[in-house]
């Protein structure tokens, strides 16, 4: 039997099931216990699992990340919530210098099964300091796994996998997707970290997108099918590890690559993916890869301005058209 749940419910359910399964799993963060989370993602968990396992912290991101590191290396499986992913700036040292490198710098003496959940992404009018695609900040820090679910099923399945994972996982929850619905089994499946999903098969162009952009990429693909363009939409679902093989295999068939991302270009996962595929699949390409992303500006507040910043369905569809038109001027 299957059921329809929201992205938000999937996250709550995954935490509850993980805590049910493993006594070592606990959750802490700002207002996650009594208030049930700023985004209500941990609603009911305090009542169900008690204050030992569901804990409110002060507004102290460095302390939250430090607690995650120390408890993970000493045998627990902490889930730490950073309310808005942008606050990772406050505890960047803990994540990038300590958590990511701990195992390596100690020659493998330590395992670090910590899951950090971060509220990510734009589209909800929170302005420049509460809307960024923060997953990109950590791409150049070896030692972190980076997970970016776009559907309720993936949010559930990947969060369960993240909590079981022996390594630190940054789990980015897109704020604009909390209310989106999707089908999952009554006992939803775990999703392996590092496996891309071919969301929509196609033959003419490979379109890669995550989270909110995945939804818009599918909408663009549907619009383009009316024009006779067959788009293959792929969601990597995790950026580290990145399933380049699945995307490369698609590219070998379609010979065109478009990436839609909610980020400006430099230092982004899309730019990284393009660079990698240029190096390994150059011969497959019939056109230059195209990155459809945000402007090189902070994210603006006003609704119309923010909507211009985030790639729209039309902008993504137009990118696909331009890519396919390369070498065939109208």
């Amino acid at each position: 039997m299957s059921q329809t749940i929201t992205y938000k419910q999937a996250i709550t359910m995954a935490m509850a099931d993980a805590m049910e399964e493993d006594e070592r799993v606990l959750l802490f963060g700002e207002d996650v216990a009594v208030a049930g989370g700023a985004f209500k993602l941990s609603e009911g968990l305090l009542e169900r699992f008690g204050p030992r396992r569901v804990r409110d912290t002060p507004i102290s991101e460095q302390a939250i990340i430090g607690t995650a590191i120390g408890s993970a290396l000493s045998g627990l499986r902490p889930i730490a919530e950073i309310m808005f992913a942008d606050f990772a700036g406050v505890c960047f040292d803990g994540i990038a210098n300590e958590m990511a490198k701990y195992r390596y710098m100690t020659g493998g003496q330590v395992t670090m099964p910590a899951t950090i959940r971060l509220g990510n992404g734009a589209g909800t009018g929170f302005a420049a300091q509460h809307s960024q695609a923060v997953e990109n900040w950590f791409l150049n820090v070896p030692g972190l796994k980076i997970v970016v679910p776009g559907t309720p099923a993936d949010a559930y399945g990947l969060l369960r996998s993240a909590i079981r994972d022996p390594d630190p996982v940054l789990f980015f929850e897109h704020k604009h997707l909390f209310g989106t619905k999707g089908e999952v089994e009554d006992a939803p499946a775990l999703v392996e970290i590092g496996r891309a999903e071919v969301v929509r098969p196609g033959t003419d162009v490979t379109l890669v997108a995550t989270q909110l952009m995945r939804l818009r990429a599918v909408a663009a693909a549907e619009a383009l099918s009316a024009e006779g363009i067959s788009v293959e939409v792929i969601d990597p679902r995790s950026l580290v590890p990145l399933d380049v093989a699945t995307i490369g295999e698609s590219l070998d068939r379609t010979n065109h690559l478009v990436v839609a991302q909610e980020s400006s270009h430099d230092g982004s996962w899309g730019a990284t993916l393009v660079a990698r595929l240029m190096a390994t699949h150059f011969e497959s390409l019939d056109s230059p890869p195209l990155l459809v992303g945000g402007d090189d500006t902070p994210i603006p507040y006003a609704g119309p301005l923010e909507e211009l910043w985030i790639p729209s369905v039309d902008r993504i569809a137009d990118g696909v058209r331009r890519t396919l038109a390369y070498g065939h001027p109208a």
Partner: protein
Amino acid sequence: MSTKPPATGVAADIPLEEQLDWLRSMQEIRFFEEECHRLFARGLVRGSTHLAQGQEAVNVGACRALRVTDTMACTYRGHAAVLAKGAPLDRAFGEILGKAEGLCGGKGGSMHLTDMSVGAIGSFAIIGAHLPIVLGTALTEQYEGRDGVSLCFFGDGSTNIGAFHEALNMASIWKLPVVYVCENNLYGEYSPLATTTPIERLADRAASYGMPGVTIDGNDIGVVHETIASAVARARAGEGPTLVEALTYRHKGHSRSDPAAYRPEGELEAWMERDPIVLHERALIEAGVEQSRCEAIRTQAEADVTAALERAMSWAEPSPESRLEHVFA
């Protein structure tokens, strides 16, 4: 907030045999760091190295108040603390020399000595980074209903970084079994404390976090041991964290590139008279230990350090492939 009476250098309620072992440990650490100094001069230590000569009583006195299963985190000036917690001399040398058999397989070096098998969970080179991390090791003990304690060494400079505030605050509200030990050696890198910090007694900061704060003579190993033992007992009993400020002095500069020219004339000499090893030895002899016994301990410590270094020097370099290991489990 008390300043303890002047040095006695010996602990009234601890058997002398055990205190002789404190002396052995301090002597080993002193010789170990003198060798590090020479190895650096010979170009065998990469990057930099930060010596703690003169501060041994804080590290040894505190670690001897812990169980092996208790955890200890320290700074990049951490050779002494990690050895005091029980790490082997040869593998510590091996790490500093970047050898495969070093404590961390040559991936950490002087600033990151770690030996999880003895509870030395890390040496941290970002000032203050470990103060929040010990919240987690302490939380695990509390969570599992065990009575282990996490001890955290840091310097006076760390009390001015934000992580100090976040960590002590949360340790206190969660009543975590942590003992925060500030090794106040009067200088944050090259800057005298008075130029960076508007108060004289760093233990006063404990009041902001509702925890006890005590300032002690960090060169008197008896006082250090007694103070830490009582803070550890308090933590084990579930009564929460304590901040201990141990006044001490590093004989060398901040790092190997620092001749410490900023120190006022006579300051080093005055502190050398209060060298923790000298104080402890003198007190042991006054308590009835034969001088020859102390000398034998010194000679043995030197020989053990020399032998450990010889072993470490003979070890292989890490294999090229090892650089790719341990990014993920």
